[in-house]
Every structure is written in structure tokens, then in C-alpha cells.
């Protein structure tokens, strides 16, 4: 039984899961606190940076991507992010430059 399973699955350790959970809670507190400080245009940058770090922690540890042997999973994730980036950047390239003369 054990050698059948050891190749395909990872049982996440309690310590890691709780550590990630605490990091996510700390990230939430940090976002709220950072939003209350005047940083000019960097408020949104800091907010998105913290959100992205939290999202990466969830994907890698809670969604077990860090431990997967399936190489197609990271490929799917990276292409999803890539196409999202195309959607956002090309749309904004239009709206941001409309007033340029």
C-alpha cells in the first residue's frame, strides 16, 4: 500500500499547514495596516504584492503544487496567469493611451 501511494501523493504536515495559515493571517493584517498608511501610488502596489504572495502560498502549499509530480499542472497555472496578463495589459494599453496626443 505504502509504495503504491508514495509516488503520487504528498501528505501535508500539520506544522507546514498551520505555518502557512498563520502567514496568511499575518498577510491579511499587514494589508489592512498598509492600506491605512499614506504611500501615494504605492498603496495599490503593496496591496497587490501582499495578495500575490498570499495567493502563491495557497497555490504552492494548500493546493499541493509544490509537491506534485505532474509537470502539466504548473504549465496550466503559468498559462492561465499568462493569458490573464495579456487580457489585462492589452486592455489597459488601450485605455491608458487614449488621451495621448
Amino acid at each position, binding site marked *: 500500500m505504502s509504495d503504491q501511494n508514495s*509516488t503520487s501523493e504528498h501528505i501535508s504536515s500539520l506544522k507546514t499547514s498551520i505555518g502557512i495559515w498563520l502567514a496568511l493571517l499575518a498577510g491579511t493584517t499587514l494589508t489592512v495596516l498598509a492600506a491605512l498608511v499614506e504611500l501615494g501610488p504605492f*498603496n495599490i502596489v503593496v496591496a497587490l504584492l501582499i495578495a500575490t504572495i498570499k495567493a502563491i502560498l495557497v497555490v504552492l502549499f494548500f493546493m499541493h503544487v509544490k509537491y506534485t509530480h505532474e509537470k*502539466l499542472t504548473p504549465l496550466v497555472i503559468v498559462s492561465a496567469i499568462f493569458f490573464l496578463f495579456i487580457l489585462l495589459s492589452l486592455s489597459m494599453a488601450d485605455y491608458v493611451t487614449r488621451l495621448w496626443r
Partner: protein
Amino acid sequence: MLTNAAAVDQHAHENPALLHHFASEEQQKNAASLGMWLFLAQEVMFFGGMFCAYLIYRYKYFGDFGSASQQLDLKLGAINTVVLICSSLTVVLAVRAVQLGRRKELVGWLLATILLGLVFLGIKADEYAEKFEKHHVPGASFSYHELLPSQEKLPPSDRRYADPHHAEMYFSLYFAMTGMHALHMVVGVGLFGFLTYMAWRGKYSPGYYTPIENAGLYWHFVDIVWIYLFPLLYLIDRHR
């Protein structure tokens, strides 16, 4: 012919959950997982369209969005973020419990996830009710008369108010995005209700728990969407 039948026979005895068109348990599990990730990739594009609309209007109506954002309850939004993060942990613990073959623990963590999901939806419903009371729901009865951010310090005659049409656009996006997110939560709670029933009947074991794993991936994805929605909707210009 005989060897073929013997091979099929052996295949069937390995694990009752292993379907005949897969060579091994690992292949079957990887195929199910990849399918789930592809589904999540199209969910990224689905929510991406709304995030794109948000980005464009926030860029155009920045001050009005700041004013409208401050009508939301920061405390409730933060509590809901914490609730969702906790529910993600209970999902991780549910997957761990089924991997270790602990049925009662699995049912317990699944129930905890449902409970946290319902707490989230309850708080969201309370926030929506407040929006109806304040006439901040886009439509015929929408009314908005609030200052732009950082106008309170100015003498009354110099104060500038947010454009109600721009604020209405903010609330349209607010309801579209949090509404779609809440709909995903409702689906997730239903899914976990079904899984709890099946887990209670002993359907899942360390040899077969793909539905728990994939529902977990879905739940974590919905959590990630909220991780972005919270700062984007609740935390615009809060420092003023």
C-alpha cells in the same frame, strides 16, 4: 487471450476505484487533477474579465472609487477574509484526514468548512442588506451623496462630492464581483455537503479521495479570488 483476461483480472483487483481505461492509480489521479486545474484556468479567465472591467473603471474614476470603497465596512471585510483563510485550512486538514484514513476526522473538517462557508455568506448577506438600506444598490433607487476622499478637512464651500454615476459603476462592479464570488461559495458549500454525506457513508479512503482533493482545489481557488477582491474593493484610499 488467456493472458489478456488474467491481466484484466489483476487490474480489477488492485483497487476497486481504478477505472479500466487507466493504466495505474497514479495516472487516474493525475488525469482527474489535471482536469480540475484546466477548469480552474478557465475560472481565472472568467473572473479575469471582471477584474479587467474593474481595472479600467478604477483607472478612469479613481477618486469616486475611493469614496465608494469607503462606504464598505472594513471590519466585516477583514473578518470575512480571516473566515475564508480558516476554511482553507480546514480543507487542507480534511484532505490530510482522508489520506490518513481517518473517517470521523474527515467528516468533522468537512463540516467545519461548510460552517465557515456559511459564516462568510451570512456576513456577506448582512453587508448586502446594508447596501439596500443605504440605496447603494445600482438601479432606479440608487442615490449617492458622499464626499470625495480627504475632503472633510476643507471648508464646506470647497468640498467636492463624488460623481454618483461613477459611484454607481463602483457598486455595479462590487455586486458583480462579490456576487459571483458568493455564488461560487454557495456551490462550494453544496459540494462539501454532498462530500460530507459520502464521507460519512465511508465512500472515501486513502486509495480513493479524488472528489475531496478536487473540491479542495476549487475551494482554495475561491479563497484566492477573495484574497484579491478584499484589497481591491475594500481598501481603496483608506489612509485619507
